[in-house]
């Protein structure tokens, strides 16, 4: 290489990096507004909550808080009601999400088939998802009502139960009433995501399977499910995270009932009813930690699975 060419090559480097710096600066400029908003509405409140968790702050006068170290967490981890609410939340999540995934997938398969009135059916299925959760929960609350509720009316009328049941007050029934309402409400969301996945399945592959004589369960579990796996995993992740944070359905239907109390309901009770901002914040922080941990583990498992695929 000649001397001139070499200097030329050397000179090129700073010019390229200046362009890179310019691009980086522009990128930060565009990101700044959203970063600012995120810091104000997400990072700051989150940090405040973490901080309150280490104090004995009171709702009446949060300013007069004293640092008490891990005292709140020590008490939290020994409170049987907290562990009860953790168990309730986990039970609710496992049962409700499993039901939603199975029923949602079945509905999606039905909607994906060439059935008449498909467009109308798709819209109709979405209705429960469109209704605000509080409204839906209140509506179900009335239907579950032990004396005036339509559910008891129908079941007694059909002779399926002898006497009217207190669906939301009975300790053994309440959690199932909550689960049923949540499944009714969020299955359409799962169905929609799975349907989107199903519509991405190439027709040729389904026809190749048809030529291979594959049908029914083998077609679904052997061909379709592996192809829509990522859509199913995403739907399940969303539902798991939502369920771990579950508050509105439970609170509207059963209030502070111990048999249905979730982690969020527990934190609210401490923070609002008992005015204990410090302790409530500690419970909320722990809930945040649990949800974060679950999503990180879930995503990592998903990625490992994908790497194994390749």
């Amino acid at each position: 290489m000649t001397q001139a060419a070499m200097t030329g090559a050397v000179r090129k480097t700073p010019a390229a990096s200046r362009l890179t710096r310019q691009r980086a600066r522009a990128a930060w400029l565009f990101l700044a507004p959203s970063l600012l908003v995120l810091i104000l509405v997400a990072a700051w409140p989150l940090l405040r909550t973490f901080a309150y968790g280490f104090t004995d702050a009171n709702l009446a006068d949060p300013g007069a808080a004293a640092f008490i170290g891990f005292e709140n967490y020590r008490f939290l981890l020994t409170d049987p009601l907290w562990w009860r609410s953790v168990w309730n939340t986990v039970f609710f999540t496992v049962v409700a999400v499993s039901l939603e995934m199975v029923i949602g997938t079945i509905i999606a398969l039905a909607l994906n088939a060439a059935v008449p009135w498909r467009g109308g059916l798709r819209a109709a299925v979405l209705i429960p998802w469109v209704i605000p959760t509080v409204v839906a929960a209140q509506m179900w609350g009335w239907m579950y009502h032990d004396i005036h509720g339509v559910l008891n009316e129908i079941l007694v009328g059909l002779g399926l139960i002898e006497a009217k049941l207190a669906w939301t007050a009975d300790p053994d029934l309440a959690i199932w009433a909550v689960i049923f309402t949540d499944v009714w409400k969020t299955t359409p969301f799962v169905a929609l995501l799975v349907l989107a996945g199903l519509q991405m399945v190439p027709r040729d592959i389904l026809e190749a399977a048809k030529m291979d004589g594959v049908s029914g369960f083998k077609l679904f579990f052997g061909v379709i499910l592996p192809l829509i796996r990522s859509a199913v995993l995403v739907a399940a992740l969303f539902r798991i995270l939502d369920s771990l944070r579950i508050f509105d359905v439970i609170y509207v239907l059963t209030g502070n009932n111990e048999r249905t109390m979730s982690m969020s309901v527990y934190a609210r009770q401490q923070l609002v009813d008992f005015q204990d901002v410090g302790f409530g914040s500690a419970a909320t922080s722990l809930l945040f930690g649990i949800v974060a941990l679950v999503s990180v583990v879930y995503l990592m498992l998903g990625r490992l699975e994908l790497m194994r695929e390749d």
Partner: protein
Amino acid sequence: MARIGLSQVTKRFGGTEAVSGLDLDIADGEFVVVVGPSGCGKSTLLRLVAGLEDVSSGDVRIDGQVVNDLPPPERGIAMVFQSYALYPHMTVRKNMAFGLSQAKLRREEIDRRVRASATRLRIEDLLDRKPKSLSGGQRQRVAIGRAIVREPKLFLFDEPLSNLDAALRVEMRMEIAKLRRDLNATVLYVTHDQTEAMTLADRIVILNQGRVEQVGEPLELYRRPRNIFVAGFIGTPAINLLPCTLGSGAEGTVIVLPGDRTMPLPETLRACFGAGEVPSRITLGWRPEAVNLRGGTGGRKDAITLGVEVETVEHLGAETFVHARLDQRTIVTATAGANFQAQPGQRVAFELPLNRCHVFDGEGATLHHPSSGEEG
């Protein structure tokens, strides 16, 4: 191996007929290629035979048995899709074995068949790979392998080479031809590529708007097209078609060529109409290789000589295509030697020998084609 019979097969989608009253018989071990422009119904035809679509009316027979109501796996057919349609989550081995395990074959038998066809297609090394890590040509081989392992009576190919690049397409074309000789199988092959049709087929079916235009051996279709559509569809570059009108003048019947050039109707053409009445409109056709280039304008008696203006010259190495403008609407193409040189805009003379002329009537049906010795 199997005989296929289609009689009066019609397929309607809503109000449109994709295939209309189609009759076709395929002999045992025959390689039949269906070609036609897009939307002509060729893929529908294949899917009807496969059983992926139901016929609206008519019968599909395999070895004499009507299979209209038989589901695809029971028809003894294997199909190769344009997109390969491999199962992306399965290894090559599983892709090939999946249909067999479904058919409840014994494990050793499945293994034997998979290994045999992998060897035949030279994909033994790929058996444990997933389709994602294969090239287009390799995927195509796997797709063909998946068809072979089923040892079907009939192979269906739906534009199998259209997703490959040009070089690979030629290679796979030869491979399919060889495979077919080895397997001695009956094949129904759909393509829009007439080169594939010409090189692979025992017989070609030309389909247009759901109807058969002509069925025949490749060279027969080239030399003796039954109508203007077939003449125009087979052959690259396409046949030159000159719409003409016939009228009577002082010296008897005259022919008016594009560009309003009038000349007495040559005796050779006159003979095409026989004793019957002379039609008012005809179309004359010459294959590009039948067109001679002349330096001057002096015309031979047994040819029509046209003065044209060169538009583009395409040097292909072994030969040269000269596209020249006759008038506003008509471009005439001639095949010239490898060293032919001309500038766009240059005036040249094209000589169209009458003994190599195809003649079509006003409806496009063939009145006359050159005797085969002269066409070439």
